[in-house]
């Protein structure tokens, strides 16, 4: 009887983020309809806002599962997009541009990881350093090449045919399925959860931290590359502020998706996908609800309060009978 109740409780906890996403979606549609706005355009915009966050955050799940984190993912997205634009403008070769974007993204991510592994520096420190370096280098390139235009870009005709939901949904689905496979159906995901849950125990069991950290950062790099590519598909230009909010939004998305920031056994690969879209929906609901208010920043404040509430509620469920870390 007690086992059944515990099972139901766990199921509810697992389903809660999905339910929250469904509730937010219904609320959003209700708001838009009640105000007489066009739902089709709004949904397209929401999807475009959410898809970049969702892919970058899905890749980042691998890092967070280890109990680590990477604050430089937004800057890496900017840098990868910048290199992509430079590559296309130099060669006018679209496949090469895509290759440059993914190559740069994975290289940036791996560099952070190798720095942390080789010099035994906490990932927190290396990624903060990478955030500064990548932002500064990107800004230098963009302002030098962009001059009075304030940004650099590729021809809009190049990516316009790709700026449609079916293409983006396909990319998102493929990336998610690959991540799902690696995370859920291979030993990589299981071992990463083990390391995140109890690194000392994992090490004593013979699981090499560095190997799984490199895999995690590589997956995150692929997510960053995809995010940079999708950013260029939506707006074929890069400015110094492109993707600036992604780094912090990943935190929020993962928490909204029901995964503990500390990683470990309760990590969920779908957390970023669900949380990313939940966060974007919440922001837009607040915008609609507070429309007409002349006070700036109210949306962010309410969003922050909501975030704290979610952390409080979810943290209640993290108290388990597992061995202490």
């Amino acid at each position: 009887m007690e086992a059944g109740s515990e099972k139901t409780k766990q199921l509810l906890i697992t389903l809660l983020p999905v339910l929250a996403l469904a509730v937010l979606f219904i609320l959003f549609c209700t708001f838009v309809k009640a105000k007489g706005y066009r739902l089709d355009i709004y949904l397209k915009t929401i999807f475009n806002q959410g898809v970049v966050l969702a892919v970058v955050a899905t890749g980042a799940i691998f890092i967070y599962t280890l109990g680590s984190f990477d604050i430089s993912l937004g800057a890496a997205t900017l840098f990868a997009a910048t290199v992509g634009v430079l590559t296309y403008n130099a060669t006018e070769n679209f496949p090469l541009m895509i290759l440059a974007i993914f190559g740069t993204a994975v290289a940036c991510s791996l560099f952070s990881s190798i720095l942390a592994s080789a010099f035994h520096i906490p990932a927190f420190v290396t990624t903060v350093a990478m955030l500064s370096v990548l932002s500064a280098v990107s800004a230098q390139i963009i302002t030098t090449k962009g001059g009075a235009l304030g940004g650099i870009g590729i021809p809009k005709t190049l990516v316009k045919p790709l700026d449609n939901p079916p293409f983006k949904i396909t990319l998102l689905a493929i990336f998610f399925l690959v991540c799902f496979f690696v995370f859920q159906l291979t030993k990589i995901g299981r071992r990463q959860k083990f390391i995140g849950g109890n690194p000392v125990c994992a090490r004593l069991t013979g699981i090499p931290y560095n190997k799984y950290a490199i895999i995690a950062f590589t997956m995150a790099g692929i997510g960053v590359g995809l995010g940079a590519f999708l950013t260029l598909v939506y707006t074929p230009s890069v400015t110094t502020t492109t993707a600036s909010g992604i780094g912090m939004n990943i935190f929020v998305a993962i928490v909204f998706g029901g995964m503990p920031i500390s990683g470990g056994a309760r990590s969920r690969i779908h957390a970023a996908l669900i949380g990313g879209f939940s966060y974007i929906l919440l922001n837009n609901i607040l915008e609609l609800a507070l429309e007409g208010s002349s006070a700036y920043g109210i949306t962010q404040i309410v969003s922050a309060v909501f975030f704290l509430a979610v952390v409080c509620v979810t943290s209640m469920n993290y108290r388990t009978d597992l061995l202490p870390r």
Partner: protein
Amino acid sequence: MKNNRLFKAIMIGGVLAGAMAFTSVQAAAADLKIGVLVADVSGEEAQGFRAYYENYIADNYDVEFVYTDALEDAAGEKAAIEKFVSQGCQAIISLSSSDRATQLDTCEEYGVYYAIASGVLDDELFEAYKGYEYFAGQVGPSNATEFEAGVKMGEFFKEQGVTSVAMYGAFIPNPMHVFRAAGVIAGLGDTYGGTNDMGGMIGQIFADQKVDPAKVEGDVELCAYLQGYGDTTTDEINAVVAKEPEAFLSVGMATTFFTQILNEAGIPFADIDSFTEANGAAIKEGQLVYLAGKYSSSIGPVFALIKNAVDGNVIRDEEGNAPSFSQGYLVATDGASFDEYYVADNGDTPIYDKETLDTIIGEDVTYDDVKALVEAN
């Protein structure tokens, strides 16, 4: 038990949010709905513009303005335009410049009129987009005007006989601030990297991403420089004050950030901003001695271009392209000259009041009518 409380909380939250959705429906729709893209939400200039549109234009014309929060990048601008279209806006006015090309393309795609009210497209971009069907035009200081505004500020202090100044570069590499900063150096009679040519200086400042005091040469010494605003700004401005410059020359936002500290230090300062109440106090009671600014209603003609376009009279120049009008800056150097512009452009009696704007709103209004009025003010 814990789960029961959780689900009760969710249920209550859902009901409350649902109620909010139904109670936040707009009361009555205006004939014209305009979305305004905003990047700077806190500056004196931005607040003055907003007050003019919301408190004067909206009261005198059947129009509703919808504003964005502070936009940070091109994707945010594009998403904001799409939301405005969804909300039924017939036109977009842009005060945000992360990526104007994408803004124009998006408006063209959705068939909503678009006008630029702050800064203008550079020549190359304007050439590319001037033929767009839904581009209603641009009114604002051109890059050459920005440079000239800086030159005049520099010349003012050179004529005062200063030999050592500090400079605030605001948000360089923002192009507007780069052009102004280059102008200030040229106006002081100095060179930057060995040149006082606008193009040469601009290129170097973009490459440096700042003004490098070591590259400034001439009779007037640039003894200190800072830019941006962040955690270290207070220390930086204190370091500037410690160097005791004879004047503090800013290319934007100094009146927002530094008025108090410069007043306390007794350092005369200059800024390019707008004619607002706070800036009036700074020039009358503080150390602000030179203000080049726009008045709040200077964005009136942009509204006229948009209203005409939505009403069916899309203003075009002689060649059939979107109009581009350059607005200069007004300069105040004391309380009296400040009041000349501020009192004339205040509250219910803006310079571009209804009577004036009505002369350029209507089905028979031409490009020449708008040009004549903008150039006269």
